[in-house]
């Protein structure tokens, strides 16, 4: 019984959202606002159960780890964002967070710059590595703005534009594929789970 009701609700909300394709309407806006509300309503108790109770309430009040009061206060400072006079206090936890992000900088440098560079510098022993070499160099030179893009140099940097266009085309193709996949998922639900037409 629960499955039937949940399928009906899900199907109706799906159709409400799809109705936007015709034009904006109150059904679409109802479904949109409901999604925001339900997401927040679902997340708050889950975070309370999985974060506040095990990492704040239990260790401080039941186990007596009072040093955890310091990070808890730091966390509470975030709420001062809503006060005009005291909003500066919320910068302290943000600063602390930024410090933690900074910890990842050397590792990010390694994975996104150093390793990628190493693989871009491999011997040109086949057509693929040759294409990667030309693409990398021409795109890097395209973004070098201290020399005018004229003459032979300009022609070479134009090759970089072509490489980027191919990259954008691939990204766009993947985006189309992804959007169609999401539509397929909803249609599979409507025809299969809801109407039972797909076996």
């Amino acid at each position, binding site marked *: 019984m629960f499955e039937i009701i949940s399928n009906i609700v899900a199907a109706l909300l799906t159709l409400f959202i799809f109705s936007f*394709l*015709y034009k904006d309407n109150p059904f679409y806006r109802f479904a949109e606002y409901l999604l925001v509300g339900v*997401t927040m309503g*679902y*997340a708050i108790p*889950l*975070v309370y159960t*999985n*974060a506040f109770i*095990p*990492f704040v309430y239990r260790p401080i009040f039941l186990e007596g780890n009072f040093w955890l009061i310091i990070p808890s206060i730091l966390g509470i400072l975030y709420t001062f964002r809503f006060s005009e006079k005291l909003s500066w206090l919320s910068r302290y936890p943000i600063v602390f967070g930024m410090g*933690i992000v900074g*910890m*990842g900088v050397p*590792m*990010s440098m*390694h*994975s*996104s710059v150093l*390793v*990628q560079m*190493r*693989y871009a510098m491999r011997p040109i022993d086949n057509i693929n590595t040759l294409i990667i070499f030309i693409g990398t160099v021409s795109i890097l030179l395209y973004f070098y703005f201290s020399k005018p893009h004229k003459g032979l140099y300009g022609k070479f940097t134009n090759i970089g534009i072509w490489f980027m266009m191919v*990259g954008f085309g*691939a*990204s766009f193709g*993947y*985006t*189309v*594929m*992804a959007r*169609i*996949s*999401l*539509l*397929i*998922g*909803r*249609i*599979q639900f409507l*025809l*299969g789970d809801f109407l039972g*037409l*797909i*076996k």
Partner: protein
Amino acid sequence: MTFWEKIQEIDRRWIYLVVLLCIIIPLLIPFNSKTYVTEPTSNLYKKIDSFAGKEDKAMLLSFSHDASTMAELFPMEVSILRHCFERNIKVFTICFSPAAAPLMAYAINVAKEDYENLESGVDYCNFGYKPYGLFLPIVLGMGDDVSEAVDTDTDGRKIKNLEIMKGIRNYDDLNLIVDFAASSAVFSWITYARVRFGANVAAGVTAVMAADNYPYLQSGQLVGMLSGLKGAAEYEKLVDVFAAYEDEQNPDGREFSQEVIKNTWVPIMEKTISYTGDTEMQTDVELPYKFKQARIGMNAQSIAHIMIIIFIIIGNVGYFLSKKNNNEV
């Protein structure tokens, strides 16, 4: 007004209607289409399969998405879990987003329905939802001791007391992380788990994110990648052809073979398990819908893509002819 000018001004809602029909018709009238397996998918399959039956090797599935991208990611999650359950591979699951928690439990339940003897805490373990603020402590902590870093599973049991933890201590044993993401979450696993501890990382991503992740695949920082619904369809096929394969010589599945996968295709709409070259292997069991969902979806995807390509060609021809006519006038 010429035909081409009319085409230029067509209401976009007609396009939506045609795309909708292109998707509905193949879903209602399904057909068998071949699925070709790409290298990133087969590499991930081989890596996971190398853990088969090993006490001291396990993998972690990280769910970093919500229901909006379920259409693409859910079939790959079910396929990988099915692979693990078929081949007796220890598997852990975790998520850092509240919205992913029910999807994770749902994927496990859907995949394990067909395996009666599976036991939580023995064959698989759901770490459950952990607040995102704990992402770094957990990811870095697992490099030293998984049971210390995660502490409890979704049922509140102490991780260190679970039977599945026998032989599993850190990333040396929990040697593969597959992140299912609709964002750049995979990058965090590469940055912290791979760079710091040398863990193997793979990705199951939405097609939108695939292009962003290819550089990491090319540089070997990702051991494999499933890209969108196509990646899910490929993995479904691999599990059918190898992990779920059964005969007298191979009662628990068979090893991956490039030759076999090249020559074998699995019709999805008949009670026929596979064709290897000209040899047809029959079975009385029809594959459940949940294990061929992505491949059925790919039928509709292919038709929709052809339609979109036709639209692009018509649109461009119309544009250039209209431009030419305007120039002549």
